[in-house]
């Protein structure tokens, strides 16, 4: 695709040479990790196409939307409400943060002991290789963990369109009031950016669009309960990852098409892995594209991942927004209600998360849970211990892994994961 899109990338200010290198690595690892899988649902060919065009056709679409007057908003977090963006005729996209890039440059700005996700987002900016970031009219940062909070101060010097959203850390009335006022402020900022006022109709339609997208993923995750698992964890994770990039309506349709196919597969007892394959729930930090390291290790160790208790997974997609409000204010309140339930580890205390781990292990019929923590991610690494405790009290084995995006610990991780899988058999 590179020849066709070169002028576009150049126009966006990408570093073409580095970008070529990135696409080369991305394409190769997709081929090695995804295309070598056996018994994939046919519907995954849509996602293969999306991934092959993730910096190409999708960016062209966004630029075409921009030419028609829509605005593009980039975000790094599931707390940024897509409903508000869509209602004001803006498109929300997730920004790249799933691979190490330009690390020498990043080390000049961030301390070494910063998590891989934050470092990656800076690497994509400094290396000039994220077309989503460069297409964005507004970049939304959010005060979640301390690492991100402080990093946005530095990111503010690298981009001229950063908007920082404050977020509560306690699920109290005061916390909710903060979220309410921050969403109101965000709504105003988006309206100002696009020049479009949000109406009852536009907000309701936006809520329905996003609900449909979440419902499709929810349907997908319910189908993963079957044994044999009708879809690999790698493929299901990919669907959850593409959620952040794709056109919402097309995404919903594609996921539903896969679900139709999976229903047939389940009836025919067809799986991506044989029946009785050990089943694993992955819990913890988000896994952004192209971070497929853990699922690749797990699924090549003879287990199947049946759920993600993660921002890129059920934490980000559970709960729909009530669309029955009769005024914009009612629906804004419904949005606050929906997002205030997200059980991110930045909240204290956060009893919902161990509880969700128990519920999800039960629902997905998982034999064990792997807690995925990014090195230096204090909130999730701390919470890993109470999550593990809650699981073990119910006799659900849990393995805590702590890693980053590099490949140097793959050997050690493989041994751990294989031993954990042996433990589950």
């Amino acid at each position, binding site marked *: 695709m590179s020849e066709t899109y070169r002028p576009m990338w150049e126009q966006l200010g990408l570093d073409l040479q580095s970008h070529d290198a990135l696409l080369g690595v991305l394409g190769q690892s997709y081929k090695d990790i995804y295309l070598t899988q056996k018994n994939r649902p046919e519907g995954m060919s849509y996602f293969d196409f999306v991934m092959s065009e993730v910096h190409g056709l999708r960016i062209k679409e966004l630029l075409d939307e921009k030419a028609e007057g829509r605005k593009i908003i980039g975000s790094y977090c599931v707390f940024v409400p897509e409903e508000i963006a869509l209602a004001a005729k803006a498109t929300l996209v997730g920004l790249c943060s799933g691979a190490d890039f330009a690390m020498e440059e990043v080390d000049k700005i961030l301390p070494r002991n910063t998590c891989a996700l934050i470092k990656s987002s800076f690497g994509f900016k400094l290396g000039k290789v994220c077309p989503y970031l460069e297409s964005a009219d507004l970049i939304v940062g959010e005060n979640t963990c301390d690492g991100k909070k402080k990093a946005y101060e530095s990111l503010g010097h690298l981009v001229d369109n950063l908007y920082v959203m404050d977020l509560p850390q306690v699920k109290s009335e005061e916390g909710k009031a903060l979220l309410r006022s921050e969403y109101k402020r965000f709504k105003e900022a988006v309206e100002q950016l696009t020049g479009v006022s949000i109406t009852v109709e536009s907000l309701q339609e936006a809520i329905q669009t996003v609900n449909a997208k979440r419902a499709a993923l929810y349907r997908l995750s319910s189908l993963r309960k079957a044994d044999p698992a009708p879809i690999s964890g790698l493929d299901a994770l990919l669907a959850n990852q593409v959620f952040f990039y794709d056109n919402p309506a097309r995404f919903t349709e594609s996921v539903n098409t896969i679900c139709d196919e999976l229903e047939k597969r389940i009836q025919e007892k067809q799986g991506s892995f044989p029946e009785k394959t050990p089943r694993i729930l992955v819990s913890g930090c988000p896994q952004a594209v192209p971070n497929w390291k853990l699922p690749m290790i797990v699924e090549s160790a003879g287990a199947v991942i049946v759920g993600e208790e993660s921002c890129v997974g059920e934490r980000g997609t559970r709960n729909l927004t009530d669309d029955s409000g009769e005024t914009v204010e009612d629906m804004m309140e419904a949005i606050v209600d929906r997002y205030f339930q997200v059980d991110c580890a930045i909240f204290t205390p956060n009893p919902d998360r161990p509880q969700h781990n128990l519920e999800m292990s039960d629902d997905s019929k998982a034999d064990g849970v792997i807690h995925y923590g990014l090195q230096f991610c204090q909130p999730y690494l701390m919470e890993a211990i109470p999550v593990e405790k809650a699981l*073990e009290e119910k006799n659900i*084995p849990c393995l805590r892994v*702590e890693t980053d995006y590099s490949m*140097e*610990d793959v*050997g*050690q991780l493989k*041994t*751990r994961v*294989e*031993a954990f899988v*042996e*433990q589950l058999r």
Partner: protein
Amino acid sequence: MRFAGIDIGSRTIKLVAVDEAGQMKASFLADTGFDPITAAKKLLAEVSFERIMATGYGRNLFEIAFDAPTVTEIKAHATGARAIFPEARTVLDIGGQDSKAISLFENGKVKKFEMNDRCAAGTGKFLEIMAKTLGYDLEAFGREALFAENDLNISSMCTVFAESEVTSLIAKGNNRREIARGLHISVIRRAAGMINRVSSEGDIVFSGGVAKNPCMAAFLTDKLGRRVLIPENPQSIGALGAALLALEKKASA
């Protein structure tokens, strides 16, 4: 009929053969070197067997070269330790380049395990390099540490940092035995932390090359107040476990 287990570790390769009753009939050891497959081939020439199972960090290399099934070090050590101490519920293995603590269910299945991170801190390699820095051979290193009269705290766990810490302690004129003791204690602290995360009581079976160091076992007992059981040939426990699993596999096939 014999069944073999081969444990390709970072420092040494261990090969054990058992008979159909699971009794150890032969045990061999060789340096891994830079070409583990050639080293393994030489060992394999020593023994005949019907079936072999590989474990250790080189297990996947072996799997490809010899088309043999593999098992992780964790399960292999758990199985080997239980064969010698049938009541064992906790296993500590400190090998050349990694260390692990394993707790077992009553039936011998792995309940939980902890492994060291990506570096060699607190492993055999750490002790080996530190012994060299102090001018001891490995055997004298553990023995001499036992003679130290005072505690000396070594704070670095990283091999590279600990080496410079030791060098500066030597330069300050500290007692060599006490430095040796401090180094052993620093490894024990780390091992004890791992054990405590997986199990809080009962005897501990100590396997792996580092279990041959008398100082380690003594300090571990002191630190945890739990009995530490050391098999006669602690380095071969992983290979023994693999051999027994090869036998089991035959039984179930």
